[in-house]
C-alpha cells in the first residue's frame, strides 16, 4: 500500500500553518498524528494535493492546569496523557480514555486534538469531552475562537472547523470536589474501535445527590452523542441502582447506531445502556459516593 503523490509542508508556526491552509484551500489536509489520515492515503481512497504537517509547530504539546481549567495542547500525544501525573491523579476519566484508544504504539503518534478534529463518532475522546463539558480552541485567519464541544460535532466526520482553521487546544473545566468520571469501552480486541463506549462525569452534592453530570456516548450514531435526557433525569437524584439503570435506558434511547461487524443496532443500543450504567457507577464511586 503506497500513497499517491502529494506535496508536504511543515510550517514552523501556527500563523504560517493557517496562512498555508488558507492559500491551499480544499486541496490541503492537516497532518497531525496521521494515524487515521495516513492509512487512508495508503489505500488511495484519499488523495490530497498537500499535507500540512502541524507536528513541527512548537508549543502545541502540553498538559497544564490554569485558573480552574485543564488545558491540553492539540498535538499532545495520547501516550502523554497516559503518563501524565496530573491526568492520573485528577482526571481518571481521561486516563481511562487514553488507555483504550487504538493500541499503545499507535498512541505514541496519535494526538488528542486529532482524535476530536476528525469528527469520527467512533473515536473515544469526543464522548469523554462531552461528559466533561470541554471546549476547543481554534485558530483561523481571523484569529482565535472557542467552541464548546457540544457544538463542535456537526455530522459524520463533520465538525465546526473550517478548512483554514486548526484546532489548537482542548479546555476542560477542573471538576470541583466530590467529582469523579469514568470511560468504559467495549471493544472486540485491543486496537479496535468501540462497539460502544460511555463516558460519565459526576459531581455529588453534600447530601450525596447528583449535582452535576455529563454523559457522552461513543459510536452510537453518526456523531458523538451527549445523553442529555439521561443527564437531566439524574440531576438532583440519589445515584442508587434503579436511578442509574433508568439513566442507562434514557442514554440508550438517545442512540442511533448502525449495524456493522461489531454488532447489530439492537446490540449496540443495549451496550450503550449497559456501559452508561457501568460508567456512572464508576464515576459515582470515584466521586466518593456509593
Amino acid at each position, binding site marked *: *500500500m*503506497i*500513497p*499517491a*503523490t*502529494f*506535496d*508536504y509542508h*511543515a510550517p514552523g508556526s501556527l500563523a504560517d500553518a493557517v496562512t498555508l491552509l488558507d492559500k491551499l484551500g480544499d486541496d490541503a489536509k492537516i*497532518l497531525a498524528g*496521521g*494515524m487515521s489520515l*495516513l*492509512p487512508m*492515503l*495508503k*489505500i488511495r481512497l484519499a488523495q490530497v494535493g498537500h*499535507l500540512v*504537517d502541524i*507536528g513541527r509547530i512548537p508549543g502545541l504539546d502540553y498538559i497544564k492546569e490554569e485558573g480552574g481549567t485543564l488545558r491540553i495542547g492539540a498535538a499532545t500525544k495520547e*501516550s502523554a496523557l497516559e*503518563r501524565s501525573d496530573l491526568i492520573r491523579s485528577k482526571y481518571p476519566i481521561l486516563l481511562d480514555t487514553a488507555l483504550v484508544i*487504538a*493500541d*499503545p*504504539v*499507535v498512541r*505514541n*503518534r496519535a494526538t488528542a486534538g486529532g482524535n476530536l478534529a476528525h469528527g469520527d463518532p467512533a473515536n473515544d475522546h469526543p464522548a469523554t469531552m462531552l461528559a466533561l463539558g470541554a471546549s476547543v480552541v481554534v485558530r483561523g485567519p481571523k484569529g482565535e475562537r472557542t467552541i464548546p464541544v457540544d457544538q463542535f460535532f456537526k455530522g459524520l466526520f463533520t465538525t465546526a472547523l473550517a478548512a483554514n482553521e486548526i484546532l489548537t487546544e482542548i479546555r476542560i473545566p477542573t471538576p470541583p470536589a466530590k467529582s469523579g468520571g469514568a470511560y468504559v469501552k467495549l471493544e472486540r480486541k*485491543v*486496537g479496535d474501535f468501540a462497539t460502544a463506549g460511555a463516558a460519565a462525569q459526576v459531581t455529588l452534592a453534600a447530601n450525596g445527590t447528583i449535582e452535576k453530570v455529563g454523559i457522552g456516548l461513543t459510536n452510537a450514531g453518526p456523531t458523538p452523542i451527549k445523553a442529555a435526557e439521561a443527564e437531566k433525569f439524574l440531576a438532583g437524584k440519589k445515584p442508587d441502582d434503579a436511578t442509574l439503570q433508568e439513566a442507562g435506558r434514557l442514554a440508550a434511547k438517545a442512540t442511533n447506531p448502525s449495524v456493522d461487524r461489531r454488532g447489530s443496532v439492537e446490540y449496540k443500543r443495549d451496550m450503550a445502556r449497559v456501559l452508561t450504567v457501568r460508567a456512572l457507577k464508576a464515576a459515582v464511586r470515584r466521586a466518593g459516593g456509593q
Partner: protein
Amino acid sequence: MSMHKITVTVNGAPRSAEVESRLLLVHFIRETLGMTGTHIGCDTSHCGACTVLLDGEPVKSCTMLAVQADGRQVMTVEGLEKDAKLDPIQEGFMQEHGLQCGFCTPGMMLTSYALLKRNQQPSEDEIRHAISGNLCRCTGYVNIVKAVQYAAAKQQ
C-alpha cells in the same frame, strides 16, 4: 510531488537522503538505507512488525512519512546490540524462546525495550498491555512475556 532533503539519525549515525514526500519511513529504513530488520506486516498500523523507536518511543514506521522523521532519532533492531554485546531484551527472547518465525520479533523487542526503559519491573499484565500493539502469530505471547521478564531481571 515534492522532494525533501532529510537527515535522520539512525542508530546513532546521521543518514541523509533526498526523498519523495510520500516515502514511508519503513521504506526509507528498508530500501533507502538497506536495513531490513524492520518488517512490514499489515500496512494499516495494526500489526506492529514495522515498529521502530522514534526519539525513544515505539512507533509504527509503515504509518509515518520519512519526512516526518527529519532531524529525529530513529532506533531499529539493528541498533539493539552494542559493542558486540546483546541487549538484555535480545538475550531474553533467545533464552525464553520468545520467537519462532522471527518476523514480529524486531518490533516486539523494540516495544519491550522501550517499556523497560520506562518501567524496570513491569507486571505480567503491564507487559501484555505494552505489547498489545504488536501481533505475533507463532508464540501465543507466553514466552514473549517471559522474555521481557528475563530482560527486566537481567537489568536489575
